[in-house]
């Protein structure tokens, strides 16, 4: 239905906007079952349609395959650096920038045109497998926190780095390190035909916000937001809905009537140190009437006042 479609369009556009708005590193974590390249291309399309320049570092697929499916106006805005065809620069054509793939990234960082820039890395896993993790992190940090170069206007340069990470290829270490660098993290998953994206926004110095969106990607790489799957499956039982009432089965009285309250307040507790108690302690003779010792000797008690140890033969 057209109205739904229009509403859907607005919503997916908002969602992608919110992903791109934060700037910094957007980490897309995908896996074998839920691939992320289509989502990456949807983000690239969104960025290109809003008039920005998008630079792509392509390592895993060829340029033709990557550009496939994009409209011509989107394609014209993409600047593609191809590392797939000749990653080690054996053909020595002089096109590849020095320093390898990281050098290419750094070069992207330096070419400052005014306006926001989006850099897409396909994929970060490729880089992590060939370069030390620390260097990759340092370069990504330098990209996302680019200080404005002298000579250009010091306007805020919004740099967005979209990185695709195949999380099954790496251990928890590199994935954790990259997540700590990322401003936004999107984990792709899904159930039974529907794709989902679990998004974590980590705004600086604020609590992270989580969001889960169900979507499907159309052939032209626009996003269509879906409702989630039917909620028959696993309604999470809230473990705290039925709290155990601690006031049942008590042997003492929690609810006192007014009289009882007065009686309780009037009671002097034995360990409360009041002035009467102090007096009683200082002058022990006066309170004697209250304390008596009642002693009833039984058959075995010896009331002889003499020293019982006299009987002993020591």
């Amino acid at each position, binding site marked *: 239905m057209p109205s739904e479609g229009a509403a859907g369009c607005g919503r997916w556009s908002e969602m992608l906007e919110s992903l791109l708005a934060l700037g910094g590193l957007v980490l897309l974590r995908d896996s074998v079952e839920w691939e992320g390249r289509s989502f990456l291309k949807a983000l690239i399309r969104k960025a290109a349609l809003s008039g920005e320049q998008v630079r792509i570092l392509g390592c895993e697929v060829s340029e033709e395959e990557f550009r496939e499916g994009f409209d011509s106006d989107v394609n014209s805005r993409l600047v593609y650096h191809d590392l797939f065809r000749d990653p080690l620069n054996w053909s020595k054509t002089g096109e590849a920038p020095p320093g390898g793939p990281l050098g290419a990234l750094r070069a992207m960082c330096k070419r400052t045109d005014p306006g926001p820039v989006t850099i897409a890395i396909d994929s970060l896993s490729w880089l992590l497998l060939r370069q030390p993790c*620390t260097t990759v992190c340092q370069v990504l940090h330098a990209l996302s926190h680019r200080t404005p170069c002298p000579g250009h206007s010091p306007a805020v340069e919004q740099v967005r780095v979209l990185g695709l990470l195949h999380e099954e290829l790496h251990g928890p270490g590199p994935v954790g390190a990259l997540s700590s660098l990322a401003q936004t993290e999107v984990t792709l998953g899904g159930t039974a035909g529907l794709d989902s994206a679990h998004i974590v926004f980590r705004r600086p110095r604020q609590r992270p916000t989580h969001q889960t969106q169900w979507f499907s990607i159309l052939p032209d790489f626009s996003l269509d937001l879906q409702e989630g799957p039917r909620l028959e499956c696993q309604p999470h039982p809230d473990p705290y809905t039925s709290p155990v009432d601690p006031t049942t089965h008590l042997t003492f009285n929690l609810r006192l009537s007014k009289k009882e309250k007065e009686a309780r307040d009037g009671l002097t507790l034995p360990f409360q140190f009041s002035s009467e108690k102090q007096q009683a302690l200082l002058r022990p003779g006066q309170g004697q009437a209250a304390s008596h010792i009642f002693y009833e000797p039984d058959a075995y008690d010896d009331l002889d006042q003499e020293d019982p140890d006299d009987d002993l033969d020591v």
Partner: protein
Amino acid sequence: MAAVATCGAGAGGTESMAAATSKSNVTSFQRRGPRASGTDSGGPRLVSIAGTRPSVRNGQLLVSTGLPALDQLLGGGLAVGTVLLVEEDKYSIYSPLLFKYFLAEGIINGHTLLVASAKEDPADILQELPAPLLDDSCKKEFDEDVCNKKPESDIKMKIAWRYQLSPKMEVGPVTSSRFGHYYDVSKRIPRELIETSKWHGFFLPEKMSSADKVECCSLTPGYMKLLHFIQNIIYEEGFDGSNPQKKQRNILRIGIQSLGLPLWGDDVCCSENCDSSHSLSKFLYILRGLLRTSLSACIITMPTHLIQNKAIIARVTNLSDTVVALESFVGSERETNPLYKDYHGLIHIRQIPRLNNLICDESDVKDLAFKLKRKLFTIEAEWTVRERDRKKGLPLPLVHPPMAAAASALQPAHRPDPKPGAGYFFLVSHGVQGPSTWAILHCTPGP
């Protein structure tokens, strides 16, 4: 520790000893010399550096961490010459606050700052320090907090007299403002204060040029540069007593943010068997050596949740003096737990140093939770019903059995017929799974 040794046992020591230590000694013993003689320099002068005070236990020179509640938990403050390691919470929301409190306290007291970071520019960090609460506005801030409390807390508990004397956790401001100030997190520190203060910044991306790939003695280049930087500052500005100037001595407060991140060039967070596995330990060892021989105190925040090899975390803990860990409830199941709704996370004091001492000044309260209110970061003892947590099978933090005031955890006094109005609360109770000796010790009332 340089310059702060106290003459412990030698109270009112001999003339020679006093003279030898007079210039650089901070001692609480003052020689009552004959003033009538007119000499001004007889006996040790009480040299006091702004923002420090001697510990009441052993005279160790202490500086404030910026949070008076944390000072109290650490036994009065952070000892000069030691390292305070803060283990960051998972999303690094609250640990930067402790970092900033430490630096802000330094600015207020006029100490020199050294801020090192690989992630943020130190100038930006300094811009975001919280503004200090002055004494007259302090009272207003706390009054508004008190009014928001629920009315039930007004009912005073009748406490057995023996326990009335036990110290309460201080939540309010202290009247003396020379040690430990309060800060308003919602406001920024005034620019004039930053400009008049002396600070040095170390931002790793600026200091490292791509040509430095040489690793010497298995220390990461980033750490090496930082150590050289710190050493230079200490030497040039005379914090280690090398320049016997006549001017007033000062404390150097060092803050290192997020040590161990891959941004420092250290891959301790990236893999379990990392190449530079000793780099971090060496750095801490050398840093502690630098600190012990100078008038400085250091705070380091470290994302230990990212470190893959647990043995390294243990080593790092041993190499630091005071270790505090923050655990925030964000993203964990405790966030929705109604028991924890008043708090934002737990704070664990993992280690307190024993400096020139056989025992350390541990506080009795082990369950501590923190909450970031709009303007304040507060640390309070946590009063919860642990039994409910245990029944649900949720993991409990490893702490001592808590002092619980909730009715269901109380073992009722075995009275078959409770008289109306009679009965009093024991301040402490033991868990339902069985009496623990700790609790019984406290339960025994006095004669």
